[in-house]
Every structure is written in structure tokens, then in C-alpha cells.
């Protein structure tokens, strides 16, 4: 069995090439953004934003607009709203939970309208947005993912230093003249764009998988911020590539393999550290 030639064969297939390209961009982006999400205690807010993508996409479909607009538009809008509310509200899990519940209910309504509007063939539309499919990506979707993803990565790296400062010690950062409020909003918009961009590939239910677990592992392993930041991206990328490859040769769903790999790694790291005390 020739490893190199089998990898070559795999990548030569159109849909696998697309999947690897999109997966790579999404993974690096998720790894980087995820590190800051955990640092800023925004895991639940991110989860809520992740579900806005579903409601947004279906809402646009009901109105007869391209779902992509709903996906990016609604998510960014909610992100700006969350960003404008104070830190106290943003990390208040009752407020986030209440809004999340409502967004999900709205999603149920849109789904209901959409499926009764259009005939049977479109019944899978909602499922596509809920679960995504890395292997079913169209060239156009890969393009969107690549553009949005690279944009998020570049902006995030550009603001990484002040953002880190503002995340670790907002009070001192304000005194030093760092625009903490502005950074908050910019960061949440980046999260929103990142979530929206990854929906076609991993779906709105699981688009936080790559965001949270790799970053959580990285934070457990190293304490130096920039090392942890890049380790998180590296781990997300590794899980994605392994997931795609295993998914190609077995028939298991790729998002299941990725989330399981990440979870097992997290549990191993956690247990190992617990045993060492």
C-alpha cells in the first residue's frame, strides 16, 4: 500500500479537494478565534450565535433571498447587538439563554413555513443547514468559505496583540488607551463571520465544535498566549485533516470523526493532568 499515491488519489477527487481546502481554512480560523472565545468566557454566547446562523439562513430562504445573505447578515447583526451590550450582559447566561431559546423558536417557524411552501424535494434544506456537509460542497461555497475565512484570519492576527491585552486585563488596557469597546465588537463580528462561513461545511449545530475543543486543549497544555493560540489552530487543523482522511476511507460522517477526535484528545489531556496533580 503506497501511502503517498493514495493521498494523491484522494486529493485528486474534486469533492475531496474542495473538502480539504474548505476544511483547512475553517480549521485554522476556528482554532485562532476559539482561543479568544475561551479566554473571554464567550463559549455560551458563541453557541447562541451559532444557532442564529440556522435561523438566518432559513429566514432568508422564506423571503426568497439567497440563504447566504441571511446567514452572514443575521449572524453579524446579532453579533453587533451582543457586542454593544455590556460585558455583564454578554456573559450573563440567563440573558444569552433566553435569546437563544427565542432564536431557536423562530428557526422552527421559518423551517415550518419553508417546508410547507416548497414541495418535498426541499425537505432536506433545513437538515443541510443544521448539519452541513464537508463532502457535498459546491465550488461557489468553497469560494465563500475561503474568502470569509481568510478575511477573518487576517483581521484577527492583525488585532491579536491588543485583543489579547483587552481580554486578559480590560481595566489596564483601557487605561493604556486600548479601544476595548471597539475590539469587543470587532471580535464578535469575526466570530459571527467565522460561524457563518463554516455552516455549509459543518452545519449550524456543530460549527462551534472546532472552535471550542482545540482551543480548550491548547489552553490546558501551554500557558504562553501566542504559543497556545497557534497550537489551537494546529490542533484544529490536525483534527480536520485526520477526520477528512478517516471519513474518506470509512463511511462515518466527518463531523462525527472530527468532534470525537477532539473530544478524546481533550479527555486524555485532562485525565493526564489530573493524575499528575
Amino acid at each position: 500500500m503506497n501511502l503517498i499515491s493514495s493521498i494523491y488519489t484522494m486529493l485528486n477527487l474534486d469533492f475531496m479537494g474542495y473538502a480539504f481546502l474548505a476544511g483547512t481554512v475553517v480549521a485554522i480560523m476556528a482554532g485562532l478565534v476559539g482561543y479568544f472565545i475561551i479566554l473571554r468566557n464567550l463559549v455560551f454566547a458563541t453557541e447562541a450565535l451559532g444557532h442564529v446562523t440556522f435561523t438566518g439562513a432559513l429566514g432568508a430562504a422564506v423571503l426568497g433571498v439567497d440563504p447566504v445573505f441571511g446567514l452572514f447578515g443575521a449572524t453579524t447583526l446579532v453579533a453587533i447587538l451582543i457586542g454593544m451590550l455590556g460585558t455583564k450582559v454578554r456573559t450573563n447566561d440567563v440573558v444569552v439563554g433566553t435569546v437563544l431559546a427565542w432564536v431557536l423558536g423562530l428557526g422552527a417557524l421559518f423551517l415550518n413555513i419553508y417546508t410547507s411552501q416548497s414541495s418535498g424535494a426541499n425537505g432536506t434544506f433545513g437538515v443541510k443547514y443544521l448539519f452541513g456537509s464537508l463532502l457535498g460542497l459546491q465550488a461557489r461555497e468553497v469560494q465563500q468559505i475561503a474568502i470569509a475565512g481568510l478575511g477573518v484570519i487576517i483581521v484577527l492576527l492583525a488585532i491579536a496583540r491588543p485583543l489579547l491585552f483587552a481580554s486578559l486585563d480590560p481595566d489596564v488596557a483601557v487605561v493604556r488607551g486600548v479601544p476595548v469597546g471597539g475590539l469587543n465588537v470587532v471580535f464578535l463580528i469575526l466570530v459571527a463571520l467565522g460561524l457563518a462561513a463554516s455552516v455549509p461545511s459543518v452545519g449550524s449545530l456543530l460549527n462551534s465544535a472546532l472552535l471550542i475543543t482545540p482551543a480548550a486543549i491548547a489552553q490546558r497544555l501551554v500557558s504562553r498566549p501566542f504559543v497556545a493560540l497557534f497550537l489551537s489552530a494546529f490542533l484544529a487543523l490536525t483534527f480536520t485533516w485526520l477526520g477528512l482522511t478517516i471519513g474518506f476511507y470509512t463511511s462515518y460522517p466527518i463531523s462525527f470523526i472530527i468532534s470525537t477526535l477532539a473530544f478524546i484528545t481533550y479527555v486524555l489531556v485532562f485525565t493526564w493532568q489530573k493524575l499528575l496533580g
Partner: protein
Amino acid sequence: MSTDDVHLSWNVIFDIQQLFAYHFMQNAFSAGMLVALMAGVVGYFMVLRGQSFAGHTMSSVGFAGATGVSLLGWSPIFGLLLSCTVAAIGIGFLSDRRHQTAMGNGVAVGTIQTFFLGLGILFIQLSHSYTENIYAVLFGSVLGISDRDVELTIVTTVVTLAGVIAIARPLLFTSIDPDVADARGVPVRLLDYVFSILLGFTVAQSVQVVGVLLIFGLLVTPAAIAVQITASPYLAIGISILLALLFTCIGLSVAYFTPCPVGFLITGLAFGTYILVRLFKFGQIQLLK
């Protein structure tokens, strides 16, 4: 869910007769009220303990459980109970000791959630189930509640409520001040596990009525409103139950006469009320100034 031969009229009594004319609606109301009762009680503690994320996660975990056991041909409720219990224990294990309440730990909750969602996706693929089945688990299917489901719901409601009542006082104590409770010898960690499992039980019941995605609305919003209205714990639990029952009944009734899904109506009503209460309180504070 509206049936073609059902029309709303000005005769209220006739409307109510229509509402209960079909057996499935009687079942829907019985199951819905039981779920609301439990959600009102458990939701209050969930909100008090800042565990909304954990509650949301339980519903995602329940999705994996329900789809998993349907592969084996069992009733989804067993899968829900099993998966929620496993997840509760898993979150407790993965939390650091420095977090007093394990379920309040966002990272532990988030990692468990994504893992279970991944499992759910695997089970869906393995079962080759139709989209309708996925939607039924996610968003509930009121039409399909059998007599056996109602009986099961009665049993689990009694068990869950008995559990909550048994631990209510110490639970309230640890929820409000875990440090002092710990110092007084209250088993904080144990209560944490027990409550998480009760939370899981509550989510597990709800699958037929509102679905795993929307039970969360019934858990969090009525309790969030109650906490806004009163500071007294027992009064707040009462209000929370009352609101949950009210939203469920209105939601089910309106959904019967219109094509709106029940889950949307319940969460929409609850969210609207929450916003009104917040605005009212905001106005009060402004006036007092």
C-alpha cells in the same frame, strides 16, 4: 398542525370542545402540562445556578440519545435519560475543582456538547432515518404522543419532582452561596450531580412535546421572568411554574387553529413576556430616579 376541518369561531365553548375533540390533543395537553410543570421547577434552579448553558447542552445531548436508541428500536425516552445522565457525570468529571459548580463551567459543558452532537450525527447516518424523524426529535411532534408516552411522562414527572422536593432546601442553599454551604458541610458536589441528572430527566421528557431544541425555552424563559419579578425563592418557583403552564397551554391551543409550530409559539410568547417585564422594570427604575 392545523387540521382542515377545524376553524376558530366566536363561540369560546365550542372552540374548547373542538380543541379536545381529538384524542391526540388530549394527550398533547396532558404531556405538555406535565413537562411545563417540571420545566418551571427545574428551570428556576437552573437559572439561579447560572447553568443555562448546561441546560441547553442537555437538550443537544438528548438528541444523540434519542437518535441512538431508535437504532435499537427502543423508545427515545430511554436514550434521552441515559445520554443525559452520562453527560451530567461527564461534565462533572471534566470540570476543574476551582469551579464551585461544575455545570457552570463553559468549557467542560461545550466540549461535552460538541461530542454528543457529533454522535447524534453518526446515529442519524446509521439509521438512514428520514428528515421528518430528525425534525420530530429536534422540534417535537405533538401529533404523535401516545397513551404510553403520557403514562411514561407521568412516572418521570413524579420521580423528578420528588427528587427536586427532596433536595430543594440544600440545593437552594448551595445555589445561592456554594462557599458557605460547603463550609456548613452541605455536599455541594453531590448536589451538583443530582441536580444535573434531574435537569437531564426534565429535558428527556419534553422531546415529544416541544422537541430537544425548544425545551430549553420552557426551562429558561419562565424562570428568568420569575426571577425578575420576585426575589423570594418559593414565590419565584410558583410564578415560574404558572408561566410555563400558561405558555404551553396557549401555545398548544393557538397551534391547533393556526399553522404555526408549537415550539415557536411557546418560545415567542415567553420571550415577548420576558422583554415586557424587563422594559417594565427598566421604566420603574427610571421613574424612581
